[in-house]
């Protein structure tokens, strides 16, 4: 797993992809920080995260689109699948590499709460829970992207399919307002990853959303493993 993680992580920075991602990520979060926190003179980061969440779906698939599709296209999956390691290790190694690049960006954004704490009164609990929620939400998005990448040989198809799923889940909240049946509304809201995030913005760290995000992330990684395995059985 370590070998795959290292290779994937380094390949983000030997290609331009890692730099492009970090540039977009930091640019967008910077703009959000300026608009929300500086513009409204507030030390609370909940507004910042609400905005960042909405744009996260547009840049996170950048990290995952080539994760598995490229291996399939260049036949390097032959090297990985004939090496004495399990498919699980391959999938986790790749996922954590994408996750680590994302976390690099997240760590850099910590400069914002530091600034807020120095020149304002930062609500620590709320900020920490927002960060945890944001990281959990994004790891779910990354796992969906990884799954889509394992289904196809084409990076473009992987990215577009991921966007499709993510935009649909974003719209779930709006769709639910058009549905009158309460049970259906509950199901739609239950499925909406953004809905879960609201707990974190209140500074509440309950188990339910944490388990929701982690188990869905795990589920998509499991699906990815299955797709990778199943292709051998074709």
């Amino acid at each position: 797993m370590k070998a795959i993680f290292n290779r994937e992580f380094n390949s983000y920075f030997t290609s331009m992809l890692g730099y492009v991602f970090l540039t977009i990520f930091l640019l967008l979060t910077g703009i959000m920080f300026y608009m929300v926190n500086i513009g409204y003179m507030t030390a609370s980061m909940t507004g910042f995260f609400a905005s960042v969440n909405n744009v996260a779906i547009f840049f996170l698939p950048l990290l995952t689109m080539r994760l598995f599709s490229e291996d399939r296209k260049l036949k390097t999956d032959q090297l990985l699948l004939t090496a004495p390691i399990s498919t699980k290790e391959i999938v986790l190694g790749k996922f954590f590499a994408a996750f680590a690049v994302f976390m690099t960006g997240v760590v850099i954004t910590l400069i914002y709460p530091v600034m807020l704490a120095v020149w304002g009164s930062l609500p620590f609990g709320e900020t920490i829970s927002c960060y945890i929620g944001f990281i959990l939400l994004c790891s779910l998005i990354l796992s969906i992207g990884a799954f889509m990448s394992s289904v196809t040989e084409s990076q473009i198809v992987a990215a577009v399919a991921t966007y499709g799923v993510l935009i649909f889940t974003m719209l779930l909240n709006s769709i639910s307002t058009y549905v009158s049946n309460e049970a259906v509304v509950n199901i739609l809201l239950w499925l909406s990853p953004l809905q879960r995030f609201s707990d974190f913005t209140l500074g509440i760290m309950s188990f339910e959303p944490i388990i929701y995000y982690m188990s869905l992330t795990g589920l998509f990684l499991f699906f990815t493993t299955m797709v990778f395995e199943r292709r051998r059985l074709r």
Partner: protein
Amino acid sequence: MITISNLTKKYGDKYALDNISFDVKKGEVLGFLGPNGAGKSTTMNIITGYTAYTDGSVTVDGYDIIENPIEVKKRIGYLPEIPPLYVDMIVWDYLEFVYELKKIKTDDKNKHIQDIVDMVKIDDVKKRKIGNLSKGYRQRVGLAGALIGNPPVLILDEPTVGLDPKQIIEIRNIIKALGQEKTIILSSHILSEISAVCDRVIIINKGKFVAEDTPENLSKKIGNSHRMMFSIAGDREKAEEILNSFDGISNVVCVSSEGDAYNFEFDTTMDAEERKQLFFAFAENSMPILTQKEIETSLEDIFLELTQSAEKEEKKDESDI
């Protein structure tokens, strides 16, 4: 070392492999021969655990590929038809990655990799990006990857495809050297390659087993008839008539002409006495024989004969039904 029994692979209703069985002994170099689409790569992909199979069993060093895939994979170095290279990596970094990926434990990682780099002669490109290398070098980097960890079994899928003649000879020499201590399965549709390096040849066609023998025995199988080329000066029809008048000569064809000389090819089973008569027959007609040479039956011919006769039998079977 490797035992394949009743191996069958179906893609939908189509058989990619139909009941293939063979053994490879320790230290043996086995040639795997067949036209494109015969199932060579499929078989190799199955042995290395890349593709699953429909029926049968594969064991390597006593370990079953389904029950103990990790143990099997540890023992195999695989060079697929398209070398699995990450084109964005430096050669050395790639080899280090393969070393880590295979979880190799040696005392000195750098020395182990350097030994392999020297063996396949890629020392001058080890600091270069794989994407910028020529096909020949890429093939060698792929081979180096397969050799990392010094696995006792090597599976090489058409290792010389797309290389120039000089590179082919180099790769072949490397394989020959490796064959001294390792068990190797080598696939190819270039037959001279197989006869140059292999102890034993298995021929498959359309997923079916066709023949198995040493390269020498396969040549013998084709029979005692020799194909000769004669260049005879004089009248073409007369020459043909003389050739055809001998019982031991068959399949006479005039292949080309040079000035007033004609080049004939024919199969012959004649003994020394008959050959004398042939000489005098031409001498009497004052038709000098300018050139005579034997056309060697190559593995190519054996291969074509075997695969075609297998197909004919198949057709016959079908018409019987």
